[in-house]
């Protein structure tokens, strides 16, 4: 689910209140998640710099091909430094994430077309957010009325 779901709901905290966005994260080999935003939409990164507590809910199976979908909630601590990335070849994890998104979202190529670059000149100037999972919960049949099962988050290191 974590690998195949196209998006998850990523929540950061702003002045103590949750702000949730659909994002496409990448699970890294070390069990952390990489989320990329851009300097035109920096709020997620600004939030985690003030409060690192975040969550990711993998709950939408649309487009994943998974026929018996479940849901997974990850709670964790995020970091995002002030470094911006304009050269994707300098960040292999970001390149892997971009490759996945290009494959899954063909229309998203608009952002690197000439009109896309003019309209969204900052879209490809990226800020990286790394999430270290602390707790995980699983709903095997995506039934949120049922109590979740606790996940051993060390298992995330064996997914990739």
């Amino acid at each position, binding site marked *: 689910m974590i690998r195949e779901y*196209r*998006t998850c*709901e990523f*929540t950061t*905290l702003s002045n*103590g*209140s*949750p702000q*949730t*966005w*659909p994002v*496409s994260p990448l699970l890294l080999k070390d069990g952390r998640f990489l989320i990329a935003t*851009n*300097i*035109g939409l*920096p709020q997620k990164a600004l939030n985690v710099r003030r409060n690192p*507590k*975040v*969550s990711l*809910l993998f*709950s*939408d199976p*649309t*487009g994943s091909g998974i026929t018996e979908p479940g849901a997974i*909630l990850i*709670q964790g601590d995020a970091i995002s430094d*002030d470094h*911006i990335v*304009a*050269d*994707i*070849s300098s960040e292999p994890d970001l*390149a892997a994430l*971009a*490759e996945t*998104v*290009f*494959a*899954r*979202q*063909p*229309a*998203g*190529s608009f952002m*690197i077309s000439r009109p896309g670059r003019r*309209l*969204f*000149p*900052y879209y*490809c*100037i990226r800020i990286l957010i790394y999430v270290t999972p*602390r*707790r995980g919960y699983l*709903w095997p049949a*995506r039934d*949120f*009325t*049922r*109590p*979740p099962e606790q996940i051993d988050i060390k298992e995330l290191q064996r997914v990739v």
Partner: protein
Amino acid sequence: MWSEAAKELAEFREAVLTALDPAGYPVSVRQMAPRYDPGTGEFTVVWPSGLSVAEGPATVLCHSHDEKLWKIKQMQIKGRLQRRADQWVFISTDFRRLPGSQLGVFWRMARDMRRAGRRYLERRGLEMPTVNWKALQALRNGTSAKDE
């Protein structure tokens, strides 16, 4: 006051409700067809046992995309989660309607992102960096080649 929120919420089959747990971490669950009251801006939350949550700030996000991660729609209501008798209740505090047309959403997003991007660089005293478009194109083309 909440009739617009109710109308937009009704366009989605599910909503993601996020609140905080007692340790201050966000915690999210899906609500299936929440029964949102357009008069009060409230709905009863079905919260699973075994998952800790606390009263306080909360948000409702609805979003959808097609199989190709396009035709993206979303809406959000800010609010609070409150324990009332033996139930959890979401109480709306803010809802901002997006422009009615997809084109309107697109133009507003382009304008807002240009402003925010400029501000991000200015506040840090940074020049506009040079994007490596060739590397991005190569990644895109590599993906295309694999698809063929």
